[in-house]
């Protein structure tokens, strides 16, 4: 069974803290994605990686960075968390071509106080 796992289901952090969200997939997918989900806005792409050490900005990269040192692992970093980053964060992975579906993790609900 295919699996995308995220390091935490729920996370509470304070303003200004550095936050790491980790995602691991076991399907040997080239692509990995970080999305942010907010009510009424759907899923918005934060960052995308198509290979180890390769990354591409999505629609809302401000305030975030990413790291992909190994093919199976993709980390999202909030350098200095702010309250407007309180949200649900979803990780996904897929094979390279567009015809392939994305597989999603369960999500991390982050609250920044």
């Amino acid at each position, binding site marked *: 069974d295919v699996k995308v796992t995220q390091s935490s289901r729920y996370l509470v952090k304070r303003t200004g803290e550095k936050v790491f969200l980790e995602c691991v997939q076991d399907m040997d997918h080239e692509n990995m994605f970080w999305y942010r989900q907010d009510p009424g806005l*759907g899923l918005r792409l934060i960052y995308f990686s198509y290979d180890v050490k390769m990354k591409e900005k999505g629609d809302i990269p401000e305030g975030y960075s990413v790291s992909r040192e190994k093919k199976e692992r993709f980390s999202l970093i909030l350098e200095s968390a702010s309250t407007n980053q309180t949200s649900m964060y979803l990780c996904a992975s897929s094979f390279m071509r567009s015809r392939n579906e994305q597989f999603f993790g369960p999500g991390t609900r982050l609250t920044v106080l």
Partner: protein
Amino acid sequence: AQSVTQLDSQVPVFEEAPVELRCNYSSSVSVYLFWYVQYPNQGLQLLLKYLSGSTLVKGINGFEAEFNKSQTSFHLRKPSVHISDTAEYFCAVTGSSNTGKLIFGQGTTLQVKP
């Protein structure tokens, strides 16, 4: 640039009634289309996808969708819903580059009432 519009943010329906969730997209190139479902406190899972061929696509849990190129629509339908279909549904379209990126609609919450 590609975009996706889900025309209804919420769709309330009684159990065993039929339902249609509407999705329109805009694109100047050929696209692949997807419907995903998100049950409460879970990630998204694929319901169905259109890549090519027959415009009527069947998915899991009795859902189907019809690709209409002239109307740039990909509406999702189920002839008889169950309480367990209560969830959020997302329509998505491939981006302009063949990289695997998707553009998602805003989501439609299906509320099935007993």
